[in-house]
């Protein structure tokens, strides 16, 4: 099974953290590890007027602050990005105007509303003899986007489908450009990551049916925190799409044969993500950076592009673009977009030595924020620097004598992080971590003493390289 976690993250840290909460966590964690103070807020706070978008903004609003400045973030979006820039990004028609003015290549097209007569629109579209894309002006996550429309029937059918399913009333029709669908995350003058997206697909092994291949692919997607909530769904649209290729779910593709299951390449529609940060062409980089610059006070954003051999056009700007997409690609290298964002807001912390071992428990905070049991929570400041950790296994009469509570009290007094756990064989495992090597090593001597009721026979020591949760935990 592929391991999707880069060296600075792991499964335990992200346990129970899903979807856009991952974005918030990755950015918050990066800033926090550099020693910035981190506070999470309830979703409606008078402390900032940042625009909160999406179905569930809870747990995604936080601030990072150093001694002399403070910045608010909503998911990946920082407060340098103005609310006007967010509005422009949401309105695809307006965004396109800004891009056009700045000379950034965009597909040709026009917009219309549900008031406009369908005949009139159809007339206008089919004047040009080329395929086109239909999308809702204020849509997100690729909802209702239909590509490669070539016939009047398919157009009407698609429009009907969008209207019924999503309740949109403003639309854009634009030229369909063949090419790769690439999301580029731009921070200032640089690109932090580029990820290619291809429509949901399976590759045959010569024995399994399409349906079986989908199940197998989903098993792998479940291991990836970004795609676990974006599995390939078998629905009527997929069946129709297969039917157009004269295929059925029961069909067994040849070994190595790739079958595409959907037209759109969004990851939420089951698409694959492939990291292309290092291989992206210079002209594509330039267009992406120019696109972000075209919108006043945008600073950093995710740019959706279509790239082919000759051109690179921008089709959308996401002011709250995901980092999880780039950090957890299904194929290729993980990119640390959060690092680039924090560099941009707090450049003075760029070279701060920080430990990738340390994390804070986001899940428990989320639980409290979601039930509205707390209004605001400030996370304990991270210990900044290179952490040194040891795992001690204590044997003897060490269980049921309050050994773990004793370990907790002593670790806290020594300023060490870690945990204590009872092992099944009657031993106790204590992990301690800190900047001071002496304190960590000396804890072994303390372990020999233990609480009054304990009688310690032996303490074995091991090097600890895994994660450390801030504070001390009794497991």
């Amino acid at each position: 099974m592929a391991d999707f976690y880069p060296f600075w993250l792991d499964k335990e840290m992200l346990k129970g953290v899903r979807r856009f909460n991952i974005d918030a966590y990755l950015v918050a964690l990066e800033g926090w590890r550099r020693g910035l103070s981190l506070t999470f807020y309830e979703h409606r706070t008078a402390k900032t007027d940042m625009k909160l978008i999406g179905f569930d903004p809870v747990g995604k609003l936080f601030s990072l602050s150093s001694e002399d400045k403070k910045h608010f973030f909503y998911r990946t979006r920082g407060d340098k990005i103005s609310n006007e820039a967010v509005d422009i990004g949401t309105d695809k028609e307006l965004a396109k105007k800004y891009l056009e003015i700045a000379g950034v290549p965009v597909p040709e097209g026009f917009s219309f509303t549900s008031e406009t007569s369908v005949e009139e629109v159809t007339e206008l579209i089919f004047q040009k003899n080329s395929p086109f894309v239909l999308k809702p002006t204020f849509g997100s996550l690729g909802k209702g986007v239909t590509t490669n429309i070539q016939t009047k029937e398919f157009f009407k059918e698609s429009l009907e489908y969008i209207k019924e399913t999503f309740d949109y009333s403003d639309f854009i029709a634009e030229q369909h450009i063949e090419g790769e669908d690439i999301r580029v995350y731009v921070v200032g003058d640089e690109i932090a990551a580029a990820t290619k997206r291809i429509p949901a697909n399976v590759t045959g092994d010569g024995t399994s049916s399409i349906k079986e291949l989908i199940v197998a692919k989903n098993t792998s997607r479940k291991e990836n925190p970004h795609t676990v909530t974006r599995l390939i769904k078998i629905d009527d649209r997929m069946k129709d799409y297969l039917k157009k290729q004269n295929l059925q779910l029961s069909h067994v593709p040849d070994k190595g044969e790739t079958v595409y299951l959907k037209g759109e390449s969004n990851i939420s529609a089951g698409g694959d993500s492939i990291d292309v940060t290092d291989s992206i062409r210079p002209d594509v980089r330039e267009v992406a950076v120019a696109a972000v610059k075209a919108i006043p006070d945008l600073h950093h954003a995710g740019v959706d592009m279509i790239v082919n051999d000759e051109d690179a056009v921008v089709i959308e700007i996401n002011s709250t673009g995901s980092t999880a997409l780039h950090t957890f690609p299904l194929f290729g290298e993980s990119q640390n977009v959060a690092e680039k964002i924090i560099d941009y807001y707090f450049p003075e912390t760029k070279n701060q030595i920080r430990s990738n071992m340390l994390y804070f428990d986001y899940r428990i905070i989320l639980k409290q924020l979601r039930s509205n049991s707390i209004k605001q929570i400030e996370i304990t400041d991270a210990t900044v620097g290179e952490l040194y950790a040891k795992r001690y296994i204590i044997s003897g009469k060490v269980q049921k004598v309050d050994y773990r509570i004793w370990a907790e009290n002593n670790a806290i007094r020594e300023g060490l992080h870690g945990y204590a756990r009872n092992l099944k064989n009657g031993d106790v495992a204590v992990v301690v971590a800190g900047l001071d090597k002496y304190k960590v090593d000396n804890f072994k001597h303390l372990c020999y003493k233990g609480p009054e009721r304990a009688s310690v026979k032996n303490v074995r020591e091991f090097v600890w390289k895994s994660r450390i949760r801030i504070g001390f935990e009794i497991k």
Partner: protein
Amino acid sequence: MGNFDENWLPHLNNRPPGISAYRTDIYAMASEGWRRGLTLKFIKAPGYNISPSLKYSLSDGKKEHVFSVARGDAVTRDAIRICEEKPLTYYYLKKNNVPIPEGESFNDTVDDHEIVEYGKKLGFPLVVKPTDGKSGEGVITDIKTVEELENAVKHVRENLNYKNLIIERFIVGIDYRVYVIDGYVAGAYKRITANVIGDGKSTISELIKLKNLKRKNNPFIKNRSIKINQDLKDFLKSNNYSLTSIPAEGKRVYVRAHGTYFKERDPVDVTDDMSDNLKQIAVDAVAAIPGLPHCNVDMLINEEEKIGFINEINSRPQISNHLFPMEGKARDIPKAIIDYYFPETIDNAKRNKYYFDLRFIYETLWSGNAKEVTVPDVNRGKIISKRFLLSGVDRTRLFDRNVRKHAILLKLNGYIKTLESGNTSIVVSGTPKRVRQFKDILNNQLKKRFKIQSITEKFSSRNLKVGFHIIQKKNVKAEEMENLKSELKKYKNQVNKVKEEKKQLEDELESIKNSRSQKITQPLRTFRSKFKK
């Protein structure tokens, strides 16, 4: 939560679970400000490696005050120091002619002999105590002879290792705790020796049991039961009682010697009984210390002679005994303190319906995950609570989340849970307008979408944890597992019982075989068996 004494403050009956001992003080104080609409924030003392003393702040948006248990930031650092060091306290009290027991403090440069000489001059009976001892440790009272004095000094210095000590005249009196704030006495209680009051029917032993039940009900002293031990029996005997004596109705019988078993004493409210003169002594004592607007004063009071002395001034006292006396009325010290810091909130409506999850806050701060937690504000306007009974709805995750989303967007507190009948109960509490809006959403949006069969509306009088909580359905599998486990246990017990019975029967059989009559008749039986052949 058991019975709540009618003399106590009704709003303190809504404490969240898991709050006892000094956390009761913190909860009583913090919630007093919070229920008036002040913003409440819990703060862990700075620095990860400092012991986790928890502070909290209350703010009205313009000013903020930080508290440590019942001590607010109007108490200056100097005042705290003066109270911590007894010789300093006495210096200020003496200077202002506040009565203190006559005596002197000695540091390690003075030898034992000199101290004893001083004691002799002062006159018996005497008290010896360490200068900076904590909670009564090393205090030796009622010293009557030179020999006792010598031993006491030696004990404190050598066995207990306190080199600095105080010698005072021993005053026969009762321990009073007087809460002074802003120049007046807000409450006073005394602690009387462990006792029971007869009802004319029950034995002392039964009365102690009843008393312990009552103590268990008291959030502050619930872990301090009266233990029936030899000391207790001996003491009763010396007073011509025994555990089986039946005291007359209304007769108070002490079960411990005066000045022993401090933890078994009863706090009794005496605010109204204390004379103005004695109250004035407490007020004067507090006024004598600069920068001390509120605190507890420990007094020794001789009730017969109506004289009192200051024993100690405590800038960070516990206040629970004022709130939960075993006899007499509760005195609302938190109200007095919050009134003092935020006088403009005196007439604010008090939100008694809600409580906050202090236990979670403690755990989060103590485990080191967070250093500050702010509690959601309570709304200031009128609030109502409604309960909606839903039948025929499938409580999916999506449904729960939708309900919660709407409740939280409307700033409603409450919960959703499944009743035993299988119906779903949703309780929401907030402004009438928002509760109505929630009802509309329930009837117009959610009913259709989640195929709710019927919605009945009822009033709800429950106290609610702030926030909106999804209470999970009991996991059916886990429940089944639990049932199976208990059944297994039952069978195991039965098997053990049968085994035991079997063993008993075997033993009996064995003893029958070995019994004398068997042995005596053995030859006969042998003979008979032979004969049978």
